[in-house]
């Protein structure tokens, strides 16, 4: 568990004059389920995009399993999957064909277990009847579910989800949280950027960003336990208020 899967060293991301992330240092062990919180513009999405290899850092470096990302970009990128808040799809392929595409591109088209697993995901997410429909006719939540299924089927070592719970219905939120916990147990490192948490299946660690810097990095157990009266769903909001108040010298209840 302590073996570091992902190391973020002195990471800076700039868009012109705007600094989204400023000198961030982080280590994510193998098989850890981490929740990333922060205000709008705190740098959460930029961090995920950087780790996913979608944007290049302005400064600093990223290591996966000890290997520098910039030196082994292609090989390492294949092990990371990021689901953005609005994923794109092929206009001319139906939902199931997207799953086919993923399996085909990863040379696993004949893997019946994977196919069965895909079916069970469709079923659990309640989109089984829409398998033959174009994703462009889906609602945002359905599109997000499809994107999650596609990403998980590639068996990534690092899974990054940007605001996954927002578009999902409560039943799907709980199902996803449960599956993420299981994936973490299988060794997948998971970073979820969110303001929402389902009440079951808590993450192990909470990281908070504030204006591109690390504001908080603690095990969730420090702030919450299953016997607590406070529902898990309220923890991100509470932490956000508390830490921001401390950092900005504001009164906090």
């Amino acid at each position, binding site marked *: 568990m302590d073996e570091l899967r992902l190391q973020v060293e002195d990471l800076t991301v700039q868009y012109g004059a705007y600094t989204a992330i400023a000198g961030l240092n982080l280590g994510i062990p193998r098989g850890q389920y981490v929740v990333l919180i922060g205000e709008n513009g705190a740098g959460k999405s930029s961090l995920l995009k950087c780790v996913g290899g979608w944007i290049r850092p302005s400064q600093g470096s990223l290591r996966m399993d000890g290997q520098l990302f910039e030196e082994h970009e292609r090989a390492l990128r294949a092990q*990371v999957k*990021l689901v953005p808040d609005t994923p794109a799809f092929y*206009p001319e392929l139906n939902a199931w064909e997207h799953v086919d595409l993923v399996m085909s591109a990863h040379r696993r088209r004949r893997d019946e277990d994977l196919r069965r697993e895909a079916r069970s995901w469709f079923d659990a997410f309640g989109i089984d009847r829409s398998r033959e429909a174009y994703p462009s006719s889906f609602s945002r939540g359905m599109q997000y579910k499809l994107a999650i299924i596609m990403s998980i089927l590639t068996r990534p070592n690092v899974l990054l989800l940007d605001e996954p719970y927002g578009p999902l219905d409560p039943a799907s939120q709980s199902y996803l949280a449960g599956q993420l916990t299981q994936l973490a147990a299988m060794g997948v490192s998971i970073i979820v950027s969110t303001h929402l948490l389902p009440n079951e299946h808590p993450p192990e660690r909470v990281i908070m960003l504030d204006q591109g810097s690390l504001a908080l990095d603690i095990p969730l157990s420090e702030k919450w336990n299953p016997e607590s009266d406070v529902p898990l769903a309220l923890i991100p909001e509470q932490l956000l208020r508390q830490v921001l108040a401390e950092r900005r010298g504001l009164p906090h209840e």
Partner: protein
Amino acid sequence: MNELIAVGRIRYRRSRAQWFYWLKVLGVDDQKPDIWQSLYALYLLAIVCGWVVLSWAGIVSIAHYLGGPVSALWLHRLPLIFTLVAILVVTWQVARIPLRLGHGDLEWLAPSPISRRIPVLFDLIPKQAVRLMMITLIGSVLASAIHAPQYLGLGLLVGLWWLAMESFGYAASLWRASRPRGPLPGLWIAVLLGLVGLLSVLRAPMVWPSHFVILPLTEHAWQTAFMGVGAWLIAGWLAIWLAAPSVHMLTIQKGSVLYADIRGLGTRYAPNPGLVQELRQKAVLSRRRPWGRLPEGSSRWWELGRWFWSMVRMPGQILRFFELSLFLRAGLLLASDRRISLAWLIWVFVAYWFRRASLSRWFRTDVGDPFIRQFWPDTLAHRLVWSTLHPLLWVLAIAVAAWVILPAGTEFTLTHLLFLIGLAVSWWLGEAVLIIRQIDNDGRTDGAHLGSVVAVGAMMFVGAQLHHPGAALAVPIILLLWFFGQWQTGSAS
């Protein structure tokens, strides 16, 4: 009245914002409105108006010079021609959704209890004003070509006549959109057949509005002509006024979504027609059931199947590749004919506007969005080959077939064959070079069509300057060498 003012104010602000964008592009500073900025805006307006008037006057003169008086036989045929055009205008209008709303109007105006006549009014007035101006200009050019007296007056008469016909079609379209269960499908066919049937029964010219357009040419009866067309126009507007309250806004909302999305692109619409094409394609696809199934088997079979079913599901692509094949063949003909040394420049100009025939469409979809791209473990160079090989071969096959089958051709030599292949490869790789470079830099894939134009333009230029198509092969060879380097190093990941 309050509703009218409120909607009018919104429309005014929207138009103003659009005008301000273009004025800003031309250097007017809308942040500091002062007298000098206003004068500069007026100065620009005067230049544009002057340019339009001078261009129009030039075209009118050319049309007069090239044309001649209309013969008695054609004068006799004109009413029928105008009537047939009128039938087409009415049918075209009936087949369309009458009122198209943008975002904002769709969400707030359409569900409100506001009188339906108000959005109809604000849709109709600018549309008809623009149409009147366009048809008047075109009509006056045609009138000048047939040496008609007072060609501008005749142009205006044609413009008003067009508006009258369009108004009747618009009214019918409003009526069509009044059904709670959605617009009556196929009504336009009934209208077309009905009007053609009516034309075959009622041949008397006085019955049809087109009669009035011809009156100045046959009897110099200008006043009667304008009064007659005016009466038809007022009748058309009256029909709209009566039909407007019954229009079903749910139908309008459903039919306006695509239009609203395109409008939502705002000022990006003008420089990026690819985005509009993409939106139209998505809208068409989401209304259809997916045909066929991707094949079982190896990844390469899957690739072929994906391409095949994409073509079946979006048949417009087949037409585009066919067009591209013929276009490449035209390039070959121009390069082979030494008598027309500068014609290739026109060919390159056409190539610039021929952006929809992109061979890299599948490649762009595979790698253009980072979410989709992360599912392809190949390098960019590998992905380019696998996603564009089939369309490239398809285009080449049609181009060669057209070369053999079509009568006007050039001799079938190895040099010419290589030139044709070189053109296709340049079209393909010219765009691919830019896409790969853009993805490596900032991830964008728009505007890459220019790469195709530059590559094929360079080929045509070298071929024309050295008077031999074979010499032009240097361009695709350089592109292939560059691509081979990418393939070898795998640097473009």
